[in-house]
């Protein structure tokens, strides 16, 4: 009656393709129960999370060349998704490691059991989002990662600004996901399907009302835009980044953004690609709406607002928050080209951004461990009080600005060349001007660390050797990838092809 046998055969296949995500769910449950059983041990769930991520990595590695759909076309495994999943997985591991060295977490919160558990839960949500090809799954995945991040942002409940951050995050998040699901319902009403592949087929065969389509996609974009903190959906970013514990801020700025960009790219390509011309590397889009322009506008707004407002900030976390809005703008610029070169450049950019941004936030965490502040005025003379931190921070800032010979330069290079190649010269010009503006506030941090308060005889900062080793884990790739970037570029170009279904 249901064709149940056939379904079961397909289900078995689907489950074998869902192993990385399954590993995350199991790690999540194990961490939850271990935390209940061994209340005394401090980092047990943290280690569970690490092991869980390693197992996930193993399954992800085995999927390397797979390209298929699973669970009745609800979930896609392709190279693009796998690249993004690696970014998410590596940054999750990085964030767990950073958390071990963040005193704030151990001092201001009662136990870190749920903390690591929720990080695994959030990673699961992001994995699901990256691979989803059905609007219901997209919504569920966004909610899964949002709910975990709401709690994580306010994890240090005793700190007032953390609770405030969490509350703001919840309210903005609820509004944007409400708008998004409204958009989904309109899109469903237009096309009669929730599956992106079927929506694509419907749009190719039938003309639909442009205004309704435009409105629904803009509404759905508000959900994605919220995750990648693009203007005008960015309002939560500065407050949440400032209030949340540093590792969570880093996590939100890298992994959560990666998941958002992944679904943004997948949504646009799978929904709007016109498969008739046949040349997939330059997408021909269905319908007469100029989506290039819509995304380009978002990119310009995000870059410009992020960089300009960052100039006036006095808190390093807030500066990095606005800088992350600006970086979302750079990447949106590449998205607006809507071709495979643009996708590849977003992937490259994300890999570089992951290393340098996690590094920058890690330095902020280490400094906060000692001086208990993230105000830029308290950074005076830190270059002398903590030479290694100072040098590494400088490196990360250079990389975030996008100057050679660092990873950030390679990322920007590929983004700009993709934009120019697609013929959006004006957009590239805006991007370059913005990069110059961004130099001002990055230099401000550098200036305070090295040029102010030079002769202060305040005590040197203390940090454990292990924490320095971790710092080098971020610093060395930032330099290395700036010089030897061929492998990443190759991998990204290989992964740029988003699977279009059978």
């Amino acid at each position, binding site marked *: 009656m249901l064709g149940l046998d056939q379904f079961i055969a397909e289900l078995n296949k689907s489950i074998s393709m869902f192993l990385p995500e399954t590993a995350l769910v199991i790690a999540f449950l194990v961490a939850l129960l271990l935390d209940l059983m061994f209340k005394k041990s401090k980092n047990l769930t943290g280690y569970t999370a690490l092991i869980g991520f390693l197992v996930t990595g193993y399954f992800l590695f085995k999927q390397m060349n797979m390209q298929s759909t*699973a669970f*009745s076309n609800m979930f896609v495994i392709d190279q693009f998704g796998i690249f993004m999943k690696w970014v998410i997985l590596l940054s999750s591991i990085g964030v767990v490691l950073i958390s071990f060295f963040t005193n704030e977490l151990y001092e201001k919160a009662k136990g870190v059991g749920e903390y690591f558990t929720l990080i695994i839960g959030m990673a*699961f949500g992001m994995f699901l989002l990256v691979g989803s090809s059905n609007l*219901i799954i997209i919504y569920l*995945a966004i909610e*899964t990662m949002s709910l975990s991040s*709401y709690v994580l942002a306010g994890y240090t*409940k005793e700190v007032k600004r953390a609770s405030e951050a969490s509350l703001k995050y919840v309210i903005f998040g609820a509004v944007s996901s409400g708008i998004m699901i409204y958009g989904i319902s309109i899109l469903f*009403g237009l096309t*009669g399907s929730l599956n992106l592949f079927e929506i694509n087929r419907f749009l190719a065969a039938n003309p639909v009302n442009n205004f309704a389509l435009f409105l629904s996609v803009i509404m759905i974009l508000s959900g994605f835009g919220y995750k990648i903190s693009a203007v005008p959906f960015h309002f939560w970013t500065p407050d949440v980044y400032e209030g949340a514990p540093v590792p969570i801020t880093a996590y939100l700025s890298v992994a959560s953004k990666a998941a958002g960009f992944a679904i943004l790219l997948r949504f646009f390509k799978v929904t709007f690609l016109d498969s008739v011309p046949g040349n997939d590397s330059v997408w021909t889009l269905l319908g007469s709406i100029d989506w290039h322009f819509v995304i380009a506008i978002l990119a310009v707004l995000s870059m410009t607002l992020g960089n300009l407002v960052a100039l006036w900030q006095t808190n390093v976390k807030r500066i990095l928050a606005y800088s992350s809005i600006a970086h979302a703008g750079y990447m949106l610029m590449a998205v607006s080209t809507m071709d495979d070169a643009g996708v590849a450049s977003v992937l490259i950019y994300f890999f570089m951004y992951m290393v340098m941004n996690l590094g920058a936030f890690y330095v902020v965490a280490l400094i906060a461990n000692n001086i208990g502040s993230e105000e830029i005025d308290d950074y005076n003379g830190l270059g002398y009080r903590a030479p290694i931190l100072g040098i590494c921070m400088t490196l990360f800032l250079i990389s975030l600005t996008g100057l050679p010979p660092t990873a950030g330069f390679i990322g920007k290079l590929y983004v700009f060349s993709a934009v120019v190649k697609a013929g959006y010269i004006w957009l590239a010009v805006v991007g370059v001007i913005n990069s110059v503006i961004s130099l001002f506030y990055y230099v401000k941090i550098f200036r305070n660390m090295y040029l102010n308060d030079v002769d202060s005889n305040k005590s040197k900062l203390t940090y454990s050797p292990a924490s320095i080793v971790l710092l080098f884990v971020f610093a060395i790739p930032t330099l290395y990838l700036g010089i030897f970037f061929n492998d990443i570029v190759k991998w990204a170009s290989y992964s740029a092809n988003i699977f279009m279904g059978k």
Partner: protein
Amino acid sequence: MDLVGLAFYFLAALIVISAAIVVFSKNIMYSAFSLMFTFFGVAGLYVLLNADFLAVTQIMVYIGGILVLIIFGVMLTTRITGVDVKSNSLGKIQVGIAGLLSTIIAISLIVVFSSTKWFLSEPKVSGDSTKLIGNELLTNYLLAFEAASVLLLIAIIGAAFIARRK
């Protein structure tokens, strides 16, 4: 007008009026209670659409759960005695901007809903929608079903963590 049409307009009026009370009432408690009629009206619309399972769910979850939660929320956030719980603390400019934006959105939605040719599916076998939902949920939508359980689990942990005193 037939009976169904009559019922629809009655429910639509109920929803719109009670939703307007939710937004414009000066007393937040009235807003919360007025929300109940909105939810009821929506449940009625589901019935008219032959989605009886959804209608029951709407009543169970929204009126039985979420509304109670909202009323608890009102009762625990502010001092109820003395100060009236009010929602009119916005300045003129904010009200103006919000009003303008809402009007623009409302107009574009009205334009969309009146001018669009919607996708109309063949009416499926009318009858027990619960059975159909059960079949779909545990076959084609299996992934969504299991993902929902993870989502609910995270919600439990989050709720317990945030609201716990220690």
